Structure formats: C-alpha cells, structure tokens
C-alpha cells in the first residue's frame, strides 16, 4: 500500500514537471471547428477550406498584390478572338501526393465533377458558363464557354482540382461519404494529409515532391478546440503557434508578449441596407441624408475600437478595381437636415419629422449573435435622433430575420455585413434580376447598373473591367442602395518562435506559408 502511494506520488510529480506544449518540429494552428470535406470541390465550411488550401492548388494563384499569376498552369490562358475559348498550358512534372502525374485529364474531370448535379458541389455556379472542356494533350486544357465570363479566370485560381484516377472510382452521389473525402484525401499542394482525429486534430506533412517552394515547417497540426476563446487560450499558454483573433480580442492579444498579433484588412463591410420600396427610403434624398448624418469615424473608433476603416462603397480601397473618384458622404448634419426638408419631411410635434401626416419612425433590424451589429443599430438610433428620425432597433434570431423579414422584403432597413471577392464582379449586390443578385434584398434596380455589370462580366480586358466597375461605383455612391459604414479587419496571432511570417491585407497569409520557419 505504501509502495503504491509512493509510485502514485512519483507519477503525479513527473506528470506535473514534464514540459508542456508542442513538439519541436510541429507547427500548431489552433482552430475551433472540425473540417468536414477534404474534397475541395465539395467543401464549403471555412475549417475545411483552411486545411484544403494547404493540400490543393489552383491552375492560377495570386501574388502579394492579388494579381492572378500561373501556378499549375504554366502561363496565363490564350484567349480566342471571340473571348469564348481559353487555351491553358499546364506545368509539366506536377505530381499528386500518391505519385501519379497531374494532367489535363484531371482538370477536365474536376470541372465535370463540379458540374455534375449528383455531386451537389457548392461550386457549380462558378462553372455554369463552361460549355465543354477539351484535352488535346496531357498538358493542354481548352475551355469552351457558353458565353464570355470574366469571372472564370479568378475561379481557376481557386483550388478545386481533384485527381481523376481516385475520384472516377467514386459514385458522385456518394462523394461526400467517400473515404477520399473523409480520411484519405489526395492533393498536389505543399502539404499532404497524414491523419485526422475528429474533435482533436488534423495533421499534414510537408510534401517532399511539391513542384514549388517546399514547406520549411515539416508538420502542420490543426488543433481543434470547441470555441474561438479556447483556441486563443492555446496560443497564450504556448500550446499552439497561431490563432485567428476577432476584433473584440485584438487589444488583449496584442499585450501578450510571446505572440505577434497582426491586424489586416478583409473584403468585408458592414452597412445599412435600405428597402428601396419602403415609403421612407424610396426617396433618394432620404438615403443621402442618412449617409451624411451617420458619423462613421465615430463608429469605427467607438464600436470597432479602431479595428476597421470607414467604408464609402462596397469596393475596398485596396482592390485593383477601386475607383478613387467615387463620391464620399462627409459627416454633415446640416446638409442631412436640408436634404430631409427638401424631401418634404418637416420637423413636427416632439421633434419628429412628418410628411403627409406620417411620422418618420422606422424599425432598424439586425440578426442576433453579431455583437458589433447589435451595437451598431443602437448607435444609428442615437445618431439619427437629432435629425428628427425615430429609429426602433430590433434584434432578431437569424432564421426569423431572414425568413420573415429580409427574404420577403418586409423591412425598411437593416444592418448587415457582406463579403466581396477580390475581383470586380458584384452582380450579387446590385443586379435588378433577383435570380442573379441573391443579396439585393432591398430591390435596388437601375438598368444602367445592370448593363455595366453584364458588360464587365463579358469582357476579359482588365482595363475595360476597371473602367466599367469604376463607373458602377460612382452610380452606387450617388444612389446609396446602402449606407456603407465600415470595412472590417481581422487579426492573426502568431508565436514569436515563428520566423518569416508575412501577412498581407485582403490576402491573409497562405501565399507565404511555405517559407515560415520554427525556431526555438
């Protein structure tokens, strides 16, 4: 009995004294959800995309300036005179993780897999204008388009390509359940799959036969914790090297001495979206008045604690297609009052504006769970009060918010957040055809805008696109279907033990990850 006690005590002491934390050659990324699909053509959650992004690559990729450059392809596509045929030469000698060569047959197979309705791929819309894929030889892909689609090249820069020799054995209907999607993915990127323990971790190993810059970090471990807060604790204790940090925690993480917390811009903006059919907001002058009356600097500083920047449009100023001449609504309460007066909204009893016997009182909605937006609607209420506009802020559960109000157009205005692509196409926000513009909830319609969007999509000339999208930005700024408030930021906390870390606005860190190194 005594001996047993001594042994127990010894075990406990050893347990307590043994060093904490990671093994020397492992890089641990603390995450907070299980990846679901390791087939990048099927994946839609961000945990899967993070992991797949290290195992799979696109025909093209982006350099640090977000410019599209060749990757698995050896050059930019050769485009036919009618802009409808793209001939893409492939890099030779690229190997899948199982040793088989990557060829044009894989590209053809992948696109056809995505277009196969039975596979139920979330990428189907990206390729819907592809008419056929031809493979004249193993290193040439010819894409025939039904109509010209400028969005196809950015699409090819995403990693959606899967090995034909593996996936042709799998019935498309059963693709999600397949072991190649769950436990045995085969990619061609800088890392290959090693193991996955659900709710614990995913392990990737550096791919020694990768065609590009080989990764310096040999083992990449995604530690799966139950929440973002827990994931951050892992980095604070030194049990992990990297974690994503939301705006609310940036200040705290920046005080921790063993990590560098880098804040970077994202192509995400928060805005007030108007229902153009609402009796209040059908008048352009009212929308302009509110755009003048909202103090965006104050919101960025107060609500976002400075981790955001003032937004004047849906195109982030760091995007290539951004138009610097887009008109800006300066904070100007006097001007806002003038505009409201001109629109016929005169100050009435109790200081609230009235027009045709109707008081200016409206409900400003947002969805529950987004703390920033919950604070935003109250702040907008406070800022509009001196104007004689009475706002009732209302926070709704997500499903109710969509199904009962937003989707059926039963709202005056709501505060929402949207993310845009890195390229110019924003058909989803502004096109009057709802089938094309699923996010145009406020029924904004302008034939000129429709034409600009369609023309830009139908040209592969980047300068022409820039010009068309520039014009679009000017019109949108003038017509204010939304009052843009803030571009959001995010942060990445990385242990100081990691060298060569590079994190760039809008792009994040993936491009440079292979050069990262662990030191002790």
């Amino acid at each position: 009995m005594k001996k047993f006690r001594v042994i127990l005590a010894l075990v406990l002491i050893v347990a307590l004294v043994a060093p904490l934390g990671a093994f020397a050659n492992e890089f641990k990324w603390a995450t907070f959800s299980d990846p679901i699909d390791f087939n990048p053509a099927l994946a839609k959650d961000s945990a899967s995309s993070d992991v797949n992004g290290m195992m799979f690559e696109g025909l093209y990729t982006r350099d640090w300036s977000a410019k599209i450059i060749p990757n698995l392809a050896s050059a930019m596509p050769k485009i036919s005179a009618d802009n409808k045929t793209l001939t893409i030469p492939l890099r030779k000698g690229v190997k899948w993780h199982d040793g088989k060569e990557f060829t044009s047959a894989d590209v053809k197979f992948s696109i056809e897999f995505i277009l196969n309705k039975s596979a139920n791929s979330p990428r189907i819309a990206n390729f819907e204008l592809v008419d056929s894929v031809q493979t004249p030889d193993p290193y040439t892909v010819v894409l025939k388009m039904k109509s010209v689609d400028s969005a196809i090249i950015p699409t090819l820069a995403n990693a959606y390509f899967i090995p034909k020799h593996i996936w042709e054995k799998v019935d498309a209907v059963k693709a999600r359940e397949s072991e190649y999607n769950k436990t045995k993915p085969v990619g061609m990127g800088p890392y290959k799959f090693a193991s996955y323990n659900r709710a614990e971790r995913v392990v990737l190993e550096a791919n020694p036969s990768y065609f590009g810059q080989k990764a310096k970090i040999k083992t990449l471990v995604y530690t799966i914790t139950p929440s973002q807060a827990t994931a951050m604790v892992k980095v604070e204790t030194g049990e992990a090297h990297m974690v994503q940090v939301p705006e609310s925690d940036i200040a705290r993480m920046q005080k921790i001495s063993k990590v560098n917390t880098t804040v970077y811009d994202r192509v995400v903006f928060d805005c007030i979206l108007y229902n153009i059919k609402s009796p209040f907001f059908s008048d352009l002058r009212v929308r302009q008045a509110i755009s003048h009356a909202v103090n965006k600097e104050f919101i960025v500083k107060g609500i976002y604690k400075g981790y955001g920047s003032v937004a004047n449009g849906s195109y982030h100023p760091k995007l290539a297609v951004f138009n610097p001449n887009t008109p800006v609504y300066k904070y100007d309460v006097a001007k806002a009052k003038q505009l409201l007066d001109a629109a016929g909204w005169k100050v009435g009893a109790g200081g609230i504006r009235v027009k045709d016997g109707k008081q200016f009182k409206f409900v400003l909605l947002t969805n529950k769970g987004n703390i920033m937006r919950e604070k935003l609607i109250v702040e907008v209420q406070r800022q509009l009060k001196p104007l004689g506009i009475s706002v009732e802020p209302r926070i709704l559960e997500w499903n109710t918010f969509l199904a009962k109000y937003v989707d059926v157009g039963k709202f005056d205005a709501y505060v929402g957040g949207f993310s845009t692509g890195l390229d110019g196409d924003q058909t989803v926000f502004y096109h009057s055809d709802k089938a094309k513009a699923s996010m145009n909830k406020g029924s904004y319609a302008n034939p000129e805008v429709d034409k600009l969007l369609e023309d830009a999509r139908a040209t592969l000339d980047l300068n022409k696109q820039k010009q068309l999208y520039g014009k679009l930005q000017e019109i949108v700024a003038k017509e204010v279907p939304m009052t843009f408030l803030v571009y959001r930021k995010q942060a990445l906390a990385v242990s100081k033990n990691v060298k060569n870390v590079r994190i760039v606005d809008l792009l994040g860190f993936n491009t440079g990850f292979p050069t990262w190194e662990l030191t002790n």
Partner: protein
Amino acid sequence: MLKYTVRRLLEAIPLVFLVTIIAYLIINMAPGDPVNMFINPETSSPMDIEAIRQSLGLDKPLPIRYLIWLKGVLTGDLGKSFQHATPVTEMILERMPNTLVLAVSATILSFAVSIPAGIFSAIKRNTWVDYFFSTIAFIGISLPAFWFGLMLILLFSLKLQWLPSGDMRSNFDQFILADRLKHLILPSLVLGMGGMASQMRYMRSSMLEVIRQDYIRTARSKGLAENVVIFGHGLRNALLPIITLLGLIIPGLFSGAVITETIFSWPGMGRLGIEATFMRDYPVQMGVILMASVLVIFGSLLADIGYALADPRIKYN
C-alpha cells in the same frame, strides 16, 4: 433478484421510448433549420434548398420522420450525421470511451476526496475540521462548473503553466501515462466537484448515524482501538448509502460532461452533443441523447443491484 432485474430492464424500455419521443419533439421544435448549416440561405435558390431538405429526409412530416428514425434504431442504425455524412454509431463509439475515462476518473477523484473528508467531519463533528469541510462542500456545490473550469485554466494553465488548458493528449503516436494524467487532472476535478461536495455531506451524516449505533458502543467497550472501530466496524456500514449515490451521480456526470468537455476541448460525447446541437445535426443529437439515457437508466439499475448485493438485509421482489 433475477426477476427484479428482468422487471427493471423491461420497465426501462418504455422509459427510453418516451425519452426519445420528447427529445425528438424538442429538437425539431427548436428554432433553426439544419438546411441553413449546409448553404448560405442568402445566396441559394429555393430549389437548391428544397433539394437539400429532401436529401436529408426533412421534407417528410415530423411523426413519419420519427418512425423512420425509430425503425433505424431498432435495426441498430442510428442514421448518418447531416453535417459529416458519417454514421452516428461510428461517431458515438469514437467518443464514448473518452467520456467514460473522464467520468470514471472524476468519480474516483470525487470519492477519494469526499469519503475521507466526510468521515473526518463526522468524527470531529462541530469542530473547526467539520466546519472547514462543510464550508468547502457548500462552495463546491454552488460553484458553476463553467466558471470553476475557466478559473482553473486561468490559474494552472495561463499563470502557472503547470497543466495543459485542454485536450486529451499531446502525443498521438504512443500512449504516455504521464501525458494522459496531466490532461485528466483539471477536467476530472471540475466534473467531480459537484458530486464530491454532496457525497461529502452524505458520508458525514451516514457516518454520524452509524457511530451512534449500539454495535459501535460494543466495539469500543471491548477495548478496540478507535481506528479499528471507525474503519473496521463503522465505515463498512456507513458506505452503504453511498452505493445508491453512485446511481444518482451518473446523470450528473453526463450533463456535466457537456460543459466540462467543451471547456477543456475533451473529444467526448458531451462535446459531440453540443456541437451537433449548434449545427442542428438532428441524427447525432438523437444518438447522443439515446446513448446517454440508456447509460443513465442502466447505471441506476446497477447501483440498485449493487446495493442489494452489499447489504444482505435488502431484498427486491
């Protein structure tokens, strides 16, 4: 005894059945739509949404869906996870051993502390020892597990850096006892805390009752050493009610595991259940509830039988 066991087992069947009906109703009535976890409802067409609904079997009316689920269960099939497209049975079997390890070590830890503490409080009743343990017990009962767990992480992981902030192991390639124990300490302490406090109070009153009995007085008057009186004669009898308690703490261990596993990133059934709830993954939710209720019912049956075995005076008919 056998008759009793069989009767209890038969009684358990309608009970489990009832639990599944209620659980199924509540899960399905809760706001939120599993379909929204698959797609962005802001960007998908109603046709896509309908197709997904059909593929998940959610287009049928609720009673039919329940019957389909029940039929599956009776043939040993708990269905497939909406989210992971993996059989629920496989997911639960993967997690259950982890939860059992945590629950067993929490139970051992809580008895290892509560029984001696209860005995001392009883022997030294109304002294500072007794008051000290009682105070600790009341604090233990009142501390919410989520807060206590976070405070332990703050102290032992962040400040002192002695113990890991979570996870079950840091070495996956081999089993290292020290590593596993280190990971077990904080979560089993949190999970065992609530039970520990109430067991201490039970043990105290049970011991108090026993040491007033005649046979204790007899033992003392025989001139036996106090240690022998307390531990040889008293403890055995005082421990009887604690066996029943074992049956009562099983539900607490399962509900506690939901919180503890989530705080300490423990890959067990509780965390599986909570993740499934957030993702509206009905088959996984139902699977976890079914397993938990079977274990709870079975556990309390075992405790009742154990009680009868330990105390020959008790007979079930």
